């Protein structure tokens, strides 16, 4: 299989089903690709060849015995934020460089129970704080479409690994855009489900009221196949939703007659890059030509998403990251003079600059005398932002917009200026604050670089989002384009 066009999840599962290849062959092929191509991309932090081959052979045996799960033998990668029992889980931080979890995240366990084989753990921004994958302790991941450019972040390694054809699918997490923005910048499909749709147990916490795990793959159909296995209630996560999980793949065929797509006016105004806007309109035009109605909507408070998010997320992060104290696991400084020195020096050495910055901002927002002015104010604003979306969904079924303001930028271009970097998330943050599901699908590239269309749905309407994206991907083939570095034409 090596050297051929990377296949989609559904193609690979069909090949396994029909006995045209074994899980072991697929996994060996993935490992060979990673070995040959990931040196330049750096999308993996850890590759687990031994564990993957063992799991692949077990999947082959299950299939031979007629007991194969729905994803039996499918090679996937996990963002290195998901705990994997016995396999180092670093969160791309020096703090967890030595952390080998004694349990797996529920999302990891569910995908494994369905038969998926973990080939490794992908690169990311440290503790998922970033939009470029440049804050990783293990060095930046690069965009397969142009190795001088970032893959986006924080799930940059997962996006790059799928785009480069190293694995057919990978998990990601999205606190403010961390699945959708790298999916857009790398030309793949990525879905952030409704808050609480996927268990957060074993997903290393950044901002607990915003964090949500999801899937990054080539197509909406592939996302549907994996999300179904990953989602669902988990009694071990008190914020995990009890809503039943529909059959997302079956729902791809749902009737979309009369679909109303809302276009937020201020997203499509003069502030939008005109070339990006043309491509988004062309994509929406495809759906309109098949009967969808495009409707202007307003999200009058959405511009407050950046300030609200950059209080709430750091505040929650400063609390969550208080657990790293050099005592129970993770990095411990050498020869601490006393307990205070142990805490302080372990944290100073273990955390990178952006993580420390966010901890300090969060500490400020939560400190005595500032709580009402910052944290409470941001939570009140969060309600206003959510209400805008709920109001808009009274008259439309999905909302469409850009995923990111531009295409992949150059390494180093924004990393020294946090405020410029934060603008990268201006179209995605509101969705996390409102807890809504959203996905990004590739549309026509711009100057050889991918562009993403973001589709946002009502709470728990992942099925409709996936169906709309699938319809678009049946009409176009942008999602099957490959980066030149992987052997495809730009």
């Amino acid at each position, binding site marked *: 299989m090596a050297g051929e066009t990377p296949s989609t999840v559904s193609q690979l599962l069909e090949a396994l089903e029909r006995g045209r290849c074994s899980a072991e062959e697929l996994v060996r092929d993935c490992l060979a690709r990673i070995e040959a191509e990931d040196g330049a991309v750096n999308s993996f932090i850890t590759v687990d060849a031994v564990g993957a081959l063992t799991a692949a052979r077990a999947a082959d045996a299950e299939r031979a015995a007629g007991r194969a799960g729905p994803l039996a033998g499918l090679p996937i990668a996990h963002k290195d934020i998901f705990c994997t029992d016995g396999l180092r889980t670093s969160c791309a931080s020096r703090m967890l460089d030595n952390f080998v979890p004694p349990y797996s995240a529920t999302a990891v366990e569910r995908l494994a129970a369905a038969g998926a084989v973990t080939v490794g753990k992908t690169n990311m921004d440290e503790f998922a704080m970033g939009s470029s994958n440049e804050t990783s302790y293990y060095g930046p991941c690069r965009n397969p479409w142009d190795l001088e450019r970032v893959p986006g972040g924080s799930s940059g390694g997962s996006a790059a690994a799928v785009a480069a054809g190293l694995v057919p699918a990978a998990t990601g997490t999205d606190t403010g855009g961390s699945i959708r923005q790298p999916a857009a910048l790398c030309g793949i499909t990525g879905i952030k489900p409704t808050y609480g749709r996927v268990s957060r147990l074993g997903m290393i916490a950044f901002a607990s009221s915003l964090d949500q795990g999801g899937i990054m793959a080539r197509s909406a159909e592939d996302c549907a196949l994996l999300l179904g296995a990953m989602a669902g209630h988990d009694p071990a996560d008190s914020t995990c939703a009890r809503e039943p999980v529909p059959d997302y793949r079956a729902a791809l065929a749902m009737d979309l007659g009369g679909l109303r797509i809302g276009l937020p006016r201020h997203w499509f105004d003069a502030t939008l890059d005109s070339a990006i806007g043309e491509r988004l309109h062309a994509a929406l035009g495809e759906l309109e030509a098949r009967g969808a109605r495009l409707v202007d909507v307003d999200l009058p408070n959405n511009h407050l998403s950046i300030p609200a998010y950059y209080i709430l997320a750091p505040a929650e992060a400063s609390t969550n990251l208080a657990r790293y104290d050099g005592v129970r696991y993770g990095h411990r400084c050498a020869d601490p003079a*006393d307990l205070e020195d142990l805490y302080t020096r372990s944290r100073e050495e273990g955390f990178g600059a952006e993580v420390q910055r966010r901890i*300090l901002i969060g500490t400020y927002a939560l400190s005595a005398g500032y709580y009402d002015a910052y944290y409470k104010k941001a939570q009140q604003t969060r309600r*206003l932002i959510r209400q805008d979306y709920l109001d808009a969904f009274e008259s439309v079924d999905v909302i469409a917009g850009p995923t990111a303001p531009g295409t992949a930028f150059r390494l180093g271009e924004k990393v020294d200026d946090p405020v410029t970097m934060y603008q990268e998330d201006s179209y995605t943050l509101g969705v996390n604050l409102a807890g809504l599901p959203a996905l990004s699908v590739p549309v026509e590239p711009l100057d050889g670089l991918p562009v993403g269309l973001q589709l946002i749905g009502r709470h728990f309407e992942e099925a409709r989002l996936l169906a709309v994206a699938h319809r678009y991907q049946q009409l176009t083939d942008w999602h099957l384009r490959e980066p030149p570095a992987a052997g495809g034409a730009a």
Partner: protein
Amino acid sequence: MTLGADQLERLAALARLRIEPGEAPALEDSLGRILALVEELSAVDTTGVEPLANPLDAVQPLRADEVTEGNRREAFQAIAPAVEDGLYLVPRVVE
């Protein structure tokens, strides 16, 4: 909105972080710019708006008060930097 050196030092102490003296000015600058960015919220009218902590308005679910997990102390302490007799070791705090 700017942070003074005293304020930065206090924040670092609260967060159990230490700022290298040479890094302080750049950090004050970038934190100041982030605070300027979030300052936009102060102009928002939120009179009577309830703070939103959970986007689905979920409340903490309750379960029966039963032990559901086994004792995995050894597995968890195996990854600790320093343990002895089932206890986590830290520098002496009481002389």
